[in-house]
């Protein structure tokens, strides 16, 4: 009994010491960048100001956080590890009902929002949350073919998104083709570029492949910026024709959508229409992926992901397998891009930076590579989360008027990427359902999934 208390006492002492060391290290880390602030004064010179209170608050937070972690969280985590948690049964039941429920929810979502928030308030919720998230869900599913199924880490996916967007914008403006004609065309263009950029990188693998695709993505962006005659450079392209409801434009005029159907004009109709377009496109992506996984090419992708050498020695044509993955993934990127251009009515190279690619890759990886539900959940969490940051106005009352929560979006995003990788390197949904099975479908735990080196 007595022994136990002394053990506990020394534990507490060790925890305090540990927390003190962490605090000291964080003091060193934060001292230059948080402790000092560079300010331009009236004479336009750079001067230094101090922010000691902020610095010490942060250090104190680290101290308290570390102490709480080692006293309370760490023992519990260790305990949990010992009784390796078998997934409770109710999780399986939820899993079974989750997909139909989610599909039903996204279909009725605009109606739900309309009935609760009214015509004025619904616009933001359908546009910023519905459409914005669905674009990323679709991009995530498209990239999932390349990264999740074929195991080729592509850090330049945004290039295909850009190709789709610029194809639609330029062709629609120059020739006045309709959205429905240009949508497949943009997909074909993007998939052509996918093959073109896929060819040179066939021999590369892993990190190298990632970096070269990144370089390609950046090259396309720099070209978009500098080829002013063609793309109008930084200024971007504005006045891109908006999609119509099978020929009926969403305008306030007499031949507009509202007038034709005898409704009062409101911008919400266009938004809701766009919502269903992107929803249909996203479902198309998911459906095609699910079907492709059962075709020989889909099986070849997954085999390639697990082990490229074994794949080749079994006679799989890795060149074709990789190129199809690149081109089909790129095609969906192109669809999403042309939808993006049609929705915004304005595009510029600013929308196609590396951060976008990193965001999409993060969604795929955090969702659990290859899992479509995981990717969708990750997109909702990451994009919905960063959009919600815009809405947190009450924080301003706590931290003062100058506090702008949107500034912290990417900061938290980057931090979340690291934290999720450290704690769940396999992503949210880390189990894999085998597509090919002998008698019964067994769920493969993430611990058992071997990683190929392809």
């Amino acid at each position, binding site marked *: 009994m007595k022994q136990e208390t002394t053990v506990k006492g020394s534990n507490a002492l060790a925890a305090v010491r540990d927390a003190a060391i962490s605090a000291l*290290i964080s003091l*060193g*880390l934060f*001292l*230059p*960048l*948080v402790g*000092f*602030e*560079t300010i*331009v004064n009236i004479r336009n*010179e*750079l*001067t*230094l100001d101090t922010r000691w209170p902020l610095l010490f608050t942060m250090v104190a937070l680290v101290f308290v956080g570390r102490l709480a972690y080692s006293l309370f969280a760490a023992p519990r985590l260790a305990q949990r590890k010992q009784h390796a948690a078998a997934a409770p049964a109710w999780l399986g039941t939820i899993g079974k009902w989750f997909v139909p429920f989610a599909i039903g929810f996204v279909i009725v979502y605009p109606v739900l929002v309309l009935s609760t928030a009214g015509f004025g308030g619904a616009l933001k919720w359908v546009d910023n949350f519905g459409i914005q998230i669905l674009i990323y869900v679709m991009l995530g599913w498209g990239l999932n073919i390349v990264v999740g199924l074929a195991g080729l*880490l592509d*850090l330049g996916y945004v290039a295909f998104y850009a190709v789709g967007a610029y194809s639609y914008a330029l062709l629609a403006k120059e020739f006045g083709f309709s959205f429905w004609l240009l949508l497949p065309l943009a997909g074909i263009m993007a998939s052509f570029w996918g093959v073109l950029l896929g060819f*040179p*990188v066939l*021999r*590369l693998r*892993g*990190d*190298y492949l*990632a*970096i*070269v695709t*990144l*370089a*390609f993505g*950046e*090259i396309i962006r*720099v*070209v978009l*910026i*500098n080829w002013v005659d063609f793309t109008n450079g930084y200024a971007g392209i504005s006045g891109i024709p908006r999609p119509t409801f099978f020929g009926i434009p969403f305008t306030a005029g007499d031949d507009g959508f509202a007038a034709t159907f005898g409704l009062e004009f409101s911008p919400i109709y266009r938004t809701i229409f766009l919502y269903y377009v992107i929803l249909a496109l996203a479902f198309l992506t998911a459906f095609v992926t699910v079907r492709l996984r059962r075709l020989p090419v889909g099986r070849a992708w997954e085999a390639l992901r697990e082990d490229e*050498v074994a794949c080749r020695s079994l006679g799989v044509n890795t060149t074709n397998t990789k190129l199809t993955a690149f081109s089909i993934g790129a095609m969906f990127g192109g669809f999403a891009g042309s939808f993006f251009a049609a929705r915004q009515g304005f595009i510029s190279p600013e929308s196609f930076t*590396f*951060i976008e690619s*990193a965001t999409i*890759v*993060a969604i795929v*990886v955090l969702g659990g590579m290859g899992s479509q539900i995981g990717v969708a959940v990750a997109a909702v969490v990451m994009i919905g989360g960063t959009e919600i940051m815009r809405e947190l106005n009450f924080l301003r009352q706590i931290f003062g008027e100058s506090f702008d929560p949107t*500034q*912290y979006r*990417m*900061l938290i*995003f*980057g*931090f*979340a*990427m*690291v934290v999720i*990788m*450290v704690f769940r*390197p*396999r992503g949210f949904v880390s189990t894999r359902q085998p597509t090919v099975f002998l008698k019964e479908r067994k769920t493969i735990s993430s611990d058992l999934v071997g*990683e190929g*080196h392809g």
Partner: protein
Amino acid sequence: MEVFLQQLINGITLGSIYGLIAIGYTMVFGIIGMVNFAHGDVFMVSTFVALIAFLFITTWIGVPSIAVALLLVLLVAMLFTSLVNWAIERLAYRPLRGSFRLAPLISAIGMSIFLSNFVQVTQGPRNKAIPPMVQGDMVLFSQNGYNVTLSLKQAIIWGVTAILLVAFWYLVAKTRLGRAQRACEQDQKMAALVGVNVDQTISITFIIAAALAAVAGTLYLTYYGVVNFADGFVPGVKAFTAAVLGGIGSLPGAVIGGLLIGLIETFWSAYFSIDYKDVAAFSVLAITLIFLPQGLFGRPDVEKV
């Protein structure tokens, strides 16, 4: 001819900076086989630390000579940047060692986004400019009224780079620490069996990488006098290109690759188009990886089943 010589001087200066960053990439790749995507942003953090140290020393303390100030700034930047990189390795990479192959890369991308936004939030999004620290130049050569000059700044950059490279070479080739490092590069398990502290060696590798990036950062600040939170990505990719061009894992390769990239970029800007100078560097990266994946001095990657 005069323009060529002048561009050669400028290119070597830029190349020295890239070379110093490239060593960080190549060392980390050599020892744990990961592309430390955040290294460019560590370099950017070091430019800010150097800026703050410079302002602190000149306006708050005041030192007699600029040389002393510069040396102090260099030391402070090296110290704090090393601490940052050490912490990054401990928090974001070490838990992922032995995890699946792409995990550290994704974690590093997250870290890169975090670092640049952290600096943006704490120091503001605008460019930070300081008055030139060192002035004066030396006319090397004059023809047709065109002077080929080597500025004092450039001379400092060449000198500091050369001294550090010699010191660094000594460290890796001649000391116990360097031996431990090379042992870990070849086989971590075996190195651990013969008594090398692998974790510590990896930590020290990250510290050295950061220290060299901090030297590059201080020199960058001295040379350009302007820093920005977004200035980590492009120099980072270029330095990575340098490391790949020289053969990733090869230390002399990184330096030579850095010089080559610096020269290619400068000549491309001078003779072709300054708008497309980033395209030149990125194309070199793609072309090298596709046609010469082992680089100029690297060992070919042998595939074992």
